[in-house]
């Protein structure tokens, strides 16, 4: 519960209508895209400017109120669930594209801008912003920066961190921090910009960002390769990279995923295939032609059953949009969909899929696999039922083993969704004890009172590594 003085101060700061404590507002901000997680905040606040955010943080730190910042709440790591109550700060009112600088090829935006709308805006100006999380139709740039979102183009173009040049952020005590700028080169001190990207709202509240834009590729070509054997598809991925071809997009969907996606999108995917690869290359026309030809050759070598090239952009877009629905579409199978984010070096994709399927079998759970195979980022997704506690327990055990397998193959516990609360117990597996200690030190330097998104990233207890069953 918030004390009355705090409530009064917060109301004065943003105005009556932009600070709500009614049950409707509290319930509607008690969850995000993560299944099986819910916690009520004590208030919901909608700031309109950096100054207001600063004022709010001064009030919050004087009363030690936790503050959880959020955009559209589409994240999948429980990153925006207010576990300790406090105030949820919704950034939707700060939704302006402040500037697109055609001379420096940069854009300045407020955090509440919807990513998809931003991408459309810059593309209309002939420019390109590559990070394209599957949730881009609804997710905000601020949320993408906080979680360091990836997407379908990560393999060739990198992820959000590669496109953030500068930030305005408000610290826990209300002071305003400015990092970077419209600069390609900048080594003045520690790279605080990169540090804040992916900090999941635990270090500061981002209120403005300068983003890098690049020229639009001249052409694009999209194809689908279909396989009766999923490992043939996985081997194709590794082989394309080994042949030093870097497609713009290289996605894998296994059979259960193909079925649910087609059930939703009705685009005629081959329901009898074990897996498909969706591959897109962009760039100069002759390079695109050559790469797509070579990729087709590799697909055939790895026993692709059928290969189809999209007739036009519309067909290609349909295919990519359908792929973006995969996670949600899997909910057609069972009521609860738990999606994970294990990532391995690209040469290990086939090994990781083999291991995942063996683990699913061992724990007798349904796991569908799809993901950005080209950058090694797989999304093994369990379709289960939260009401069946025994099964959920088995799912959790299976995932622990999947994370361990990923790390063993030289990978990580999350490639693009972040740690939040879901992966917190596993963070130490990846970064080690020393890594966690350094991170805790950084957290307390930024937020000594621990009021910014508490309980995220750092778990009270680390999970014990499971004993690996080899073979």
């Amino acid at each position: 519960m918030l004390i009355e003085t705090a409530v009064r101060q917060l109301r004065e700061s943003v105005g009556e209508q932009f600070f709500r404590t009614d049950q409707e507002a509290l319930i509607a901000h008690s969850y995000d895209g993560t299944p099986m997680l819910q916690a009520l905040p004590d208030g919901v606040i909608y700031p309109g400017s950096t100054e207001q955010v600063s004022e709010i943080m001064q009030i919050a730190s004087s009363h030690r109120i936790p503050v959880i910042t959020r955009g559209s709440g589409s994240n999948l790591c429980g990153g925006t669930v207010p576990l300790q109550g406090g105030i949820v700060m919704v950034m939707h009112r700060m939704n302006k594209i402040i500037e697109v600088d055609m001379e420096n090829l940069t854009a300045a935006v407020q955090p509440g801008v919807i990513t998809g709308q931003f991408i459309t805006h810059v593309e209309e100006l002939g420019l390109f912003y590559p990070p394209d999380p599957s949730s881009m139709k609804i997710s905000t740039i601020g949320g993408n920066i906080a979680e360091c979102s990836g997407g379908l183009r990560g393999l060739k173009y990198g992820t959000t961190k590669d496109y953030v040049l500068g930030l305005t952020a408000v610290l826990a005590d209300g002071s305003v921090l400015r990092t970077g700028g419209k600069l390609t080169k900048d080594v003045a001190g520690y790279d605080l910009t990169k540090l804040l990207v992916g900090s999941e709202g635990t270090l500061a509240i981002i209120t403005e960002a300068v983003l890098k834009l690049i020229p639009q590729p001249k052409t694009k070509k999209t194809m689908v390769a279909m396989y009766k054997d999923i490992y043939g598809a996985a081997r194709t991925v590794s082989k394309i990279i080994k042949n030093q071809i870097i497609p713009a997009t290289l996605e894998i969907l296994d059979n259960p995923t193909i079925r649910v996606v087609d059930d939703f999108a009705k685009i005629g995917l081959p329901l009898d295939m074990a897996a498909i690869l969706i591959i897109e290359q962009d760039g100069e026309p002759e390079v695109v032609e050559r790469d797509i030809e070579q990729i087709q050759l590799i697909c055939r070598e790895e026993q692709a059953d059928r290969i189809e090239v999209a007739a036009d952009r519309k067909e290609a877009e349909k295919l990519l949009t359908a792929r973006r629905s995969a996670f949600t579409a899997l909910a057609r199978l069972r009521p609860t969909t738990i999606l994970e984010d294990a990532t391995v070096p690209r040469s290990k994709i086939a090994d990781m899929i083999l291991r995942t399927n063996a683990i699913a079998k061992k724990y007798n759970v349904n796991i569908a696999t799809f993901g950005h195979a080209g950058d090694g980022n797989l999304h093994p997704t369990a379709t289960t039922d939260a009401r069946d506690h025994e099964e959920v327990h088995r799912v959790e055990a299976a995932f622990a083993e999947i994370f361990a397998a990923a790390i063993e193959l030289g990978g990580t516990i999350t490639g693009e969704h972040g740690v939040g609360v879901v992966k917190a117990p596993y963070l130490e597996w990846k970064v080690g004890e020393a890594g966690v200690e350094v991170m805790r030190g950084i957290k307390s330097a930024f937020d000594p009172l621990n009021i910014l998104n508490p309980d995220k990233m750092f778990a009270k207890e680390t999970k014990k590594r499971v004993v690996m069953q080899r073979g």
Partner: protein
Amino acid sequence: MRCGFCLPACPTFSETGVEPASPRGRIALMKAAVDGLMVPDQQFQDQMNLCLGCRACEPACPADVKYGQLIEQTKEAMEEHATHSLPVKAIRRMVFKHIFPKHGRLKLLGGALSLYQKSAVKKAVQSTGVMKLLPKQLSEIEAILPAASSKGVVERLGTFFPAKGEPLARVALFRGCIMDIIFADTNVNTVELLSAAGFEVYIPEGQVCCGALYAHSGEMGDARKLAAVNIDTFKQLNVDYIVSNAGGCGALLVEYDHLMQEDFKYRDSAKWFASRVIDVSTLVVEKGRIPNFAQPESSVQAGKIKVTYQDSCHLRNVMKGSDAPRILMKQIANAEFVEMSEADRCCGSAGIYNIVQPEMAGFILEHKMEHANKTQASYMLTSNPGCLLQMKAGIGKHPPDHPMRAMHIVDFLHERMAGSE
């Protein structure tokens, strides 16, 4: 599943930008009420009532969440515990219990309305300013209502109308209640269009209101009673298709199987009924012989006339019938179909939404007309009486800089069908 893919599809989320006014938010509120985490208080009810029921969130949902059923159940529960004020009770009682269920009384009302419209009374009423005493929305609607009639489609054409040429199938027209009084011409035109497309048309007299207004207001018991009468009536005819020319009615008719699933006596015949329901445009395009359409001679112009189309949400999102009207419009010689941006978004009419939620309906209509006016179209076509009235109101309130006329697509086609003969 809480991915949020539904948010951009939702008109009330677009207008407000707040989570509780989104499908994901409303479902969270419903779940909280069921879990006992929240009291379904006035604010809860207001939020549920703010939903247009356009169901645009459903095709946007990869997880196939049945939002329409959830909101319907919620409204039913709200209605069971509702304490309406006395005047509201009286109006609901009159409309729901005494007028809509009985076609004869509706016709009487139609006759009275027609008399009122034709007589000096209307002028007198309007000049005295009595209309100003009514809520603004009601008086606006009164002003745009087309001529009502006590003669519905059966009185004019009888209960059977033969096919032109070799019959392709036996169909039955669902005439609707509002449709048959203030849009009786559209019903007649629908029959003639179906006949021209090769269908034998039956118009069973015993049919009653589809029940949509009841279902959307949470009066499920009454909706089921009406459904039972309709199912019995149409079942006797043993037709191949049951044709609707109003998206709002069609969407409930096509879900009669869901509505009656608990009623084991009607379950099978409800399935029979629901599987035959089809929109007039879809039937003509998919199963009929598409007649030739051309501009009537009087309006032949040098250039092509531009036509645009406002989707009926229920036709698009529930009956999945958004392609056929577009295919038909493209068949007309001398006409150019121009798609308006966000044609798939609700116009704000939504049953009686524009009367009970005038503010939100007003915002939505304003955006709609911005897009409509940009098309430079001379005709704004629709497939549902509510949308048609709303578009007429929109053209009046936010007039484009060129002449524009709102019309039911069937009337538009019928006019051009005649022109081709």
